Each structure stands twice: as C-alpha cells, then as structure tokens.
C-alpha cells in the first residue's frame, strides 16, 4: 500500500471528499424523483462512486473499493431504470456513502472495517428491489464456453453489463496453481490479491479432477479457472494476472471465448443496443445467490446511523473554492499595493510632503479594497449549510415516525466561513428540537386540522446590515405558561418571579441552564446540550437569538448574525497599563457608580462581590484580578481602595452568564481586526484573540464567556446563589477554631482548614534534622509552631499541648498549640497587623479578646518543603477524601475506583448520573468530589453536573469530568455545564494530580462534611471538657 502520507494518496483522499460533497442532496433528490429519475443526477453520484473506487483500487484500500463498487452497481441499476430509487434504496445508498466518507476520513482503519452488513444490504438491493418479473433477469447465469468445452465458471448477465458499462473486459483465465504459481515461487494469496487489485473476480472454480485423490500420486497440476473483469488490455493481461498467455480467453457477451493468443482481430464490443436484447447464449437460468433479506439497509440497525444527526455539523472544511475572478482581482490589488509602496518610498526619499500624502491616500484606498475582496473570499452561501439539513431532517423524521418537509429559503445569502462553521452545531440542535419537540405527530396534527406533514423552515435573509437565520416550524408552538411552570418546578425561578414575567420573558426561560435537560430523553434530543449551550455558542458568533411563538401555529427561532467576525466593533477598557477590547455584542450596559453609592450597591460575600441592579444581584469580576494585571489597586486591599472612588462597571451578558466587569477606565469604541492567538496562548480562555490598535499597541480581546467560566461564574444559578447568600446569609460569619499559642496569645483558624485536634504529650514530638515531627496514625506528621514563622512568644511545651492537624494544598501539617481549644461561629472583622507576619492574616476581636487569625496556607508553605508528586499523592491522602466515581462502564469505573482507593481515598461508585444523584442525595454530606464520565444512560455527566450546580446543597462540589481524547466538544460542553476540571480517561497519573489540584483549589468551606465538623466538635469538647457549641449544618459560602 502506498504510504498514507504520500502526497498522491492525500490528493486522492481530498478528491474523494470533494466527490462526496453534495452527494447527499443529489441522493435525496433522487428519492423525490422516484421512478422519474434524472440521468444527470444519477450520473453525478455514479461518477463519485466510480472515481472513489478507481483510486481505492490503485492504492489498495480494498474495503473502500469494494463498497464503492457495490454502490456503483446499485446506481447503475437505477441509471438503467431497473431499480427505482425508493426511500429504502436511497437509505442504503446514503449509509454506504456515509461509510465511505468515514473510511476515507481514516483510510488506515478502513481496511479493518467490517462491511459485511452494508455490502450484503447493497447486494440484495440489486435483486430484491426489482419488480418481481424481472428479478432474476440480471442474475441469469450465462455459460462460458471455450470452443466446445464448457467452462466451470459462470457469470450473470448483470456482471457482463456492469463490466461493459465500466469499460471492463471479461477474461477467462485458467491457472495451474502448481505450474503457474508454486513453481514461480508465488503464494496463491498473492496472486488472488493482485487479481483483485486490477479488476474484479466474477467467479472462480477449481477443476477438482486435477487435484486427484489421496490415493493418487500428488498431482502435478491443479487447475483453477477465474472469470475476471478488468480494464487491463489484452496485451498486458498475462502480465497483470500472472496467467499463461495460452490459457487466457477473452469472453464476449454471449459467453463465447476467444483465446487472446490468437486474437488478431479484436472481438466486436457489444453495442449498447445489444444490451437490451436477450442474450442468445443463455442456456439455463440459474438464480444467483442473493441475500434473503436486506440487512444493513434499515437506518436502525446500521452502526453509522447513530452518528447521522452529527453528520450535519461534523467536519470543518480546511479548503475553500474560489472563483478565479476573485483571485485575479486580489492579484491586481496586490499589484496596486506594490505601486503604492514604490510611490511612497519615492516620496519619502524626496521628502516631498505632497507626494507622501498622495501615497498615503492611495494606500488607504487600496487597503480597503483589499479588505473587502479578502472578505469576499471568506464568504460562503448559507444555503450550503442548510442543504446539509435535508438529510438530517429526513433521518430525524424517520426515526420519530413523523412526516416532515424541510423548506429552505436562502437566496444566495452569504456569511463568513467561520460563522457558517460555528452555526452548524447550534442549528443542528434547533432543527432537531423543531422536528422532535416542535412538530406534533401526524395524528395530533390531523386532530388539530393541520396537514399531516409538518414543515420545518430554514431561512436566511439580510436585514439592517445583519444576516438573519430563521429556524421555524408549523408545529404546536411554545407555551409560555407551561415553560414558566416547568421552570418553577425545576427551581430555576420562583413562582413569584414567574407571575411577574411577560410572555417574551417566559419564552426566554428555555435559555436558562438546566432548563432543557430534564426528562426529555428521546434518542434525538435531550442528550445534554440545552438551549443554554446553543445560546452560548451563538453568542460566540456575535449572534442574537429571538424566539417567536404562536401557540398551535408554530414557533420560530431567529438568529441575527454579523456578516463577519474578522472585524468587530469593540469597547476598549483598561486595567492597569493593559488595554483590553470587549466585543460590543457582549456589552449590555455601562454603569458608573458614584463613590457615595458604592457601599450601598456593592455587597460582598467572602471574596465575591455583587452589584445590586434594579432589584437583581449581578456578580462582579474585577478585570485586573481576572487578568492578573497590576491595577492601581491590586492585591487584597482592592475593595477598600476602590470604596473610596467611583467605580466603572461594564455589564456583560450572554447565553449562560451575566456579570459586571469592574474596569479602571473606559475608552472609546472602535472597529478592531481580530487576530487569532498563537498556539501557546490558545489555552487562555479569557481571551478570544488579539488586535493591534491605532498606536501600534497590541490589545487582547476579552472572551466574556471565557472569563465567566475561568472566574467560576459557571451559571446563572450559581451566581444567583452567591447573590442570595449575600442578601440573606450572614456574609462574614465564619466557623473558627480557637486555641492559644502562649497563654497570652489567642489564635483562630478557619475551621475548614482543620482536620482534627489531638491532645499530645510533649515527648511525642521528635526532632529529626532540625525539623519537628510526630508519629500520627502510622505516619510521620511534620510539626510547626507559630513562632517558626511569626514573631510571637515561644509555645511552652507543657501538658496543655495539642496538635491542630491542618489539611492544606501543600500537604498535612500539625500546628502545635495550647489549650484551651474551642469552636465558635463568629462575625469576623480582620484588621491587618501593623507589620505583616507570615502565617498570620491579621487580628480580630473574638469574645472580647484580640485574636490572631492564622493562615493555614502560609503556615504550610513555610513548614512543608515542596513535595514531589509521588509524595504528595501519599501524604495528602492521609486524610480521607470521599470521592464519588460515576461511569457506566463497570470496568472503567472499577479501575478509577481502585486507583483512588489505593491512593487512600474513600470511594463511592455509581453507574450513571441518576444513581450518582441518588447517592448524593443520600450521602451528600460525605462526598467531597465527584468524578464523572460524560456519556451515560439515563442522566449523563453534563446533566449531572448541571444538576449539582443547580442545587444549593452541593453547588460547590468539585466535579472532574473524564473525557476521551480529542473530544474538544466535551470540554466545551463540560465547562458550560460547570465542570471544575477534566481528565483524560485512563490517564492514571494525571487523574491523581487533577484530583489533588482540584481538592487543593476547591472551596473547602461548607462542603467539609458537617458530620466531620460534628466529630471535630466532639473531639474538641472531649478535650475542653465542656459541650461544643452547636454547629449548624449550613455551609459557609465563599
């Protein structure tokens, strides 16, 4: 086989794909035409199959060749009007072309593909779909005679016809396997394979007598007759087949053979009219072997049919076809530019101000021409994209048993290539929804007095400088009241809110994350991607989505799109020295908050701030900290400093997010040219690209959705919850562990950092190589005192000694401290110390005493050396974290579970999202991390994640999603659903690292099991001798 990377092979493959383009719509039109099939149309499809076959034979892609060949046979029957392109036939052809596309996409794997079902399906079509009386006609066997002798092989008239039509001749070759093969040092398989390369084996038969019996002496001959159709010419046939020239015959269409050795005058090729006549040579009709049924032709049992809905949105094209005139005009413009440059350099050399100005003017004219022309090269008709849905709608309708007509009206509307590509997925989703949910069943339609055939419309038109793409149906329409009721039921909005909503607002509810995920589990829809994701994707394209609905009459979704994404209007803002461009499409409002209003309109929840905006609470993100640039007021004191001045906030909104971006300064709006980020920066999701400003500086373009997800504003739900907590929760209440350093120094640590408190004896503390440690639960626990890092009194090692076991990102650390120990819930107002000290956040007044509030992270950083990943894996798991592993594959689930278990985690498992949810409901208090697969029955990983995010009991639970290699789509959808991190399936090393990273970065508060807290409280009260204060189960939210 030629190397796959060979240019010639690549060219062939590219050509094949080109051939395959447009085949689908031709086939569907053939189906419409039925018996009145258009020859030109069939020919086009036939030629595609034929060229694919030709090349595949040449490059040894046998499976591709076989399938293309069988497909060609069926098409030939249609062309010769012997087979009507019924929907069954077209279906089989569609599947065959799908399969071809698949194999051409991965030619290396194509050789191992199992095509038996699809091949026999096609084969049986050539017989079963014929009208009864003519059924056996093409399969009538013709006898082949060499002189008076009858050959053992036979062929059907059909074979002869097919061969003739593809310009092949038929030869009868008699091999002597001993003489021609064995003694030539060849293997029989080699011979057969080379035969199949240059042509087609019609029949093969041994001369059994030549083999003799066991009683005879081993025979010196073993005769094998081969009936062979090939394009190879008579003069080369012996070379090509390895047969002896004197035992090769050319067979004419009557079955008569002429030895090629004596073929002086070529046998008359049968004329096309002869094909219609009954061949005289037919002696006895034999019904050829045919498959009894038609396996592989029904959409349901074909393996590729599962992918069918995706087909419409599948491959992104890497090449573009351009009209030559367009290239010519570009070429001309390039010439103009050269002239301008010459003019300019001349003018500069002469320092002629007038000439320089003239040159600059012509450059600006040429530039805008170039810009326009180049833009036109990227424009593609929307109709092409729409056409792909013909098949999609047909398949979906078949599957659902509905009658659906797709009406396409695109009238040469063109859009930028990037937009067309990005439009594919959201459109698929909406079209699928229209067919699945929008349209009623035929019966329901009849009952409503509508035509039983439903219609789905795909339209595109220009409107006010934008392109509008509409997906409409004449189905039942969206019921605003039902939507609202459902949203209330799912807890997405309150009943009160619902009452106050207008009908339009109610329709917009379907864009809420978590809305379209539940209960709909039909095969077509409801696989996790909700309308929220559609909306997010459209936002990326700068599209605005509007819903119109007329109950009973149908609904329509209109997407308003810019013509191009290459040049977009943007707002420039700055953070510190950095200027950043925000696409205007994402900007909803600019808000300036006067200094005196800051306090009343901005509230904080832990580190998060929210803005009160017309009774709604909007989460805020500080641009400087989001982009990690040094603003005027960077660092932790940001909020205080800002409080003094006015605040500029850019309100950004889009599919699943709405937040305010705090910026330092607002600049002008301008049209910017989008430059993609380089490969090394691609992973920065905060940015959509870069642009060059008028002064030559580079400004990064903000990806509003990216910032939201990076900053953890995953969904409206979460932000709403943050907001709610801000409003109703005691924002600054913390659970604290109180203890002493020296008797005079009272200290506090946030409880979530504390794993346990143990009373120890001073002699348990060991000093090895200057580091303190102790034996703790079978391990060596490193120990530290506050005096190690900060200027405090030394801790007296006496009988009041306790160790506070801290669980930190660095590892586990024991902080030595002194009794009394207590747990309290208190409002905390931390003041910074006059002098910053490592390990101490600041001081606060607790129970009337000045108390040092400690920072467990800094303590650990000072006391624990950086660990190798291996050590980390061991050490950090000294404290068990309970992980819920969700995977529908028992084997993978087991593997993940045992890996985690051996690393010290406590592992719970669930076989799908639904089971996982039940486990979370029952044992949610114990679970600190969920690791889930994406594709699962009942409730998939994305839905599970959304459900977790949507439930305030566990909205903060970290979720790691296991994805397969290269499924970028999964990553996107996962992020949108609210996954915390991803890990490739079976990447064992990364999994543990990811788990540790996630656990280290997770907001531990609140999620720390309250059972654990109770235990800790008991543990403290045992020590202190008095009852621990009541710990509420409510989690603290940060």
């Amino acid at each position, binding site marked *: 086989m030629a190397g796959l990377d060979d240019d010639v092979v690549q060219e062939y493959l590219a050509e094949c794909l080109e051939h395959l383009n447009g085949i689908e719509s031709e086939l569907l039109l053939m189906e419409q035409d039925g018996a009145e099939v258009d020859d030109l149309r069939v020919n086009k499809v036939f030629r595609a199959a034929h060229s694919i076959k030709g090349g595949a034979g040449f490059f040894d892609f046998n499976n591709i060749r076989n399938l293309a060949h069988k497909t060609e046979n069926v098409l030939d029957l249609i062309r010769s009007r012997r087979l009507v392109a019924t929907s069954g036939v077209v279906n089989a052809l569609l599947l065959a072309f799908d399969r071809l596309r698949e194999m051409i996409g991965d030619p290396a794997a194509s050789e191992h593909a199992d095509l038996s079902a699809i091949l026999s399906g096609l084969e049986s079509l050539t017989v079963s779909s014929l009208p009864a009386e003519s059924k056996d006609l093409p399969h009538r066997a013709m006898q082949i005679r060499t002189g008076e002798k009858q050959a053992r092989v036979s062929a059907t008239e059909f074979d002869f016809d097919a061969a003739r039509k593809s310009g092949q001749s038929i030869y009868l070759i008699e091999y002597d*396997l*001993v003489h021609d*093969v*064995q003694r030539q040092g060849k*293997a*029989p*398989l080699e011979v*057969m394979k080379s*035969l*199949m390369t240059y042509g087609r*084996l019609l*029949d*093969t*038969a*041994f001369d*059994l007598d030549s*083999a*003799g*019996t*066991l*009683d*005879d002496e*081993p*025979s010196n001959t*073993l005769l*094998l007759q081969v009936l062979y159709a090939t394009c190879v010419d008579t003069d080369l046939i012996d070379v090509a087949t390895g047969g002896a020239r004197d035992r090769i015959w050319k067979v004419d269409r009557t079955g008569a053979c002429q030895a090629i050795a004596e073929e002086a005058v070529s046998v008359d090729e049968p004329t096309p009219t002869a094909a219609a006549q009954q061949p005289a040579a037919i002696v006895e009709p034999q019904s050829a072997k045919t498959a009894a049924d038609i396996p592989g032709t029904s959409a349901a049992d074909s393996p590729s049919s599962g992918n069918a809905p995706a087909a419409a949105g599948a491959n992104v094209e890497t090449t573009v076809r351009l009209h030559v005139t367009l290239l010519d005009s570009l070429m001309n413009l390039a010439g103009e530019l050269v002239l301008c440059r010459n003019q300019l350099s001349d003018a500069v050399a002469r320092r002629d101000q007038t000439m320089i100005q003239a040159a600059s003017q012509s450059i600006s004219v040429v530039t805008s021409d170039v810009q326009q022309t180049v833009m036109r090269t990227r424009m593609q008709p929307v109709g092409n994209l729409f056409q792909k849905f013909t098949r999609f709608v047909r398949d979906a309708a078949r599957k659902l048993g509905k009658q659906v007509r797709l009406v396409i009206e695109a009238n040469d509307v063109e859009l930028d290539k990037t937009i067309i590509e990005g439009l594919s997925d959201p459109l698929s989703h909406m079209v699928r929804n229209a067919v699945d949910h929008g349209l009623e069943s035929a019966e329901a339609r009849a009952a409503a007095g509508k035509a039983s055939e439903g219609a789905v419309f795909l339209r595109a038109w220009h409107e006010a400088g934008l392109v509008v793409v509409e997906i409409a149906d004449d189905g039942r329409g969206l019921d605003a009241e039902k939507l609202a009721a459902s949203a209330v039921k799912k807890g997405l909005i309150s009943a009160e809110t619902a009452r106050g909503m207008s009908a339009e607002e109610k329709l917009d509810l379907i864009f809420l994350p978590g809305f379209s995920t539940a209960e709909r589990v039909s095969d077509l829809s409801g696989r996790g991607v909700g309308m929220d994701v559609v909306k997010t994707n459209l936002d990326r394209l700068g599209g605005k989505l509007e819903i119109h609905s007329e109950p009973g009459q149908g609904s329509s979704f209109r997407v308003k799109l810019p013509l191009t994404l290459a040049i977009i209007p943007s707002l420039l803002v700055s953070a510190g020295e950095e200027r950043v461009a925000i696409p205007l499409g994402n900007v909803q409002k600019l808000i300036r908050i006067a200094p005196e209003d800051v306090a009343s309109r901005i509230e904080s929840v832990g580190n998060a701030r929210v803005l009160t905006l017309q009774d709604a609470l909007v989460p805020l993100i500080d641009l400087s900290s989001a982009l990690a640039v040094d603003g005027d007021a960077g660092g932790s004191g940001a909020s205080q400093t800002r409080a003094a001045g006015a605040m500029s906030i850019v309100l950004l909104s889009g599919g699943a997010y709405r937040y305010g971006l705090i910026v330092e300064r607002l600049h002008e709006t301008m049209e910017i040219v989008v430059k993609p980020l380089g490969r090394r920066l691609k992973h920065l999701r905060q940015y959509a690209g870069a642009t060059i400003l008028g002064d030559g500086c580079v400004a990064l373009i903000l990806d509003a959705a990216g910032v939201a997800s990076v900053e953890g504003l995953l969904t409206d739900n979460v932000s709403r919850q943050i907001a709610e907590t801000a409003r109703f929760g005691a924002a600054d209440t913390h659970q604290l562990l109180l203890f002493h350093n020296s008797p005079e120094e009272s200290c506090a640590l946030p409880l979530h950092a504390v794993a346990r408190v143990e009373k120890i004896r001073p002699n348990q503390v060991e000093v090895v190589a200057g580091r303190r440690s102790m034996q703790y639960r079978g391990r060596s626990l490193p120990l530290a005192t506050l005096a190690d890092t900060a200027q405090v009194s030394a801790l007296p090692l006496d009988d009041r000694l306790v160790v506070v076991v801290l669980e930190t990102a660095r590892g586990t650390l024991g902080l030595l401290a002194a009794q009394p120990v207590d747990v309290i819930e208190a409002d905390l107002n931390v003041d910074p110390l006059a002098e910053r000290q490592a390990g101490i956040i600041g001081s606060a007044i607790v129970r009337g005493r000045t108390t040092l509030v400690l920072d467990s992270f800094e303590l650990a950083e000072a006391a624990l050396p950086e660990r190798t990943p291996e050590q980390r894996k061991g050490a950090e798991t000294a404290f068990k974290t309970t992980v819920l592993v969700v995977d529908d594959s028992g084997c993978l689930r087991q593997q993940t579970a045992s890996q985690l278990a051996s690393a010290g985690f406590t592992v719970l498992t669930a076989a799908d999202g639904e089971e996982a949810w039940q486990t979370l409901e029952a044992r949610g208090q114990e679970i600190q991390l969920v690791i889930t697969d994406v594709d699962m029955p009942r409730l998939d990983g994305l839905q599970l994640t959304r459900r977790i995010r949507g439930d305030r009991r566990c909205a903060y639970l970290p979720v790691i999603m296991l994805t397969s290699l290269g499924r970028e789509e999964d990553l996107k959808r996962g992020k949108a659903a609210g996954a915390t991190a991803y890990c490739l399936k079976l990447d064992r090393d990364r999994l543990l690292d990811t788990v540790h990273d996630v656990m280290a970065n997770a907001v531990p508060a609140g999620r720390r099991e309250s059972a654990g807290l109770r235990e800790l409280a008991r543990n403290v009260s045992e020590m202190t001798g008095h009852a621990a204060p009541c710990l509420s189960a409510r989690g603290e939210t940060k």
Partner: protein
Amino acid sequence: MQNFKIERDGETATVFAAGDICASSAPELRPAMRDLVKSGVRRLVFDLAQTSMLDSTGIGLLLATFNSMRGVGGEFSVVRASDEILDLLESMRINQHFPVSGR
C-alpha cells in the same frame, strides 16, 4: 518432526496442522490422511488454528482429501482458518465444495 496432530473419535477425525500446509509438509500429511480415510473415517475436519500459511500444494492436498472423502461418501471441512487463509479459500470459491470457517 511431526507437524500435525490427529484426534480421532470413531468415524470422526480432526487434523491439527501446525505451521504451514505446504510443499514441505504435504508429503508427511498426505499418507496420514490417506490412512485415516482407509481406516474408516467419514468425517474429517482440518483445524487450521495453528496454520499460518497455505500454498498451492497445500490447496491441492485439501482438494485431494476432499475428493477422497467424497469418494467414500464422507464429509470434509476446514475450520478456524486465519483471515488470510479464509480470504484465499473464499476468493477461490473453494467453499462451494466444502464448508470453510474462520477463527
């Protein structure tokens, strides 16, 4: 060295041929097959699970064995052929004479 093994159960015999069935191994196999037919075996199965290659002589041997079995009214079949051998036998339509199955 014997490259094949025969399991016999009354009228049924299974031949396990290891390595190749080819010009070099046929002289050894051939008389063994003849003896089996002579001794009254009426169902002969060639198990090719361990067979990697089949050359023209090997094919000749299979056909001769088939012819002999047919002569005494017995059955002959080939089982567990590798994909390659299966391709070969099927492309030669040898399976229209006796059953051939793959692994």
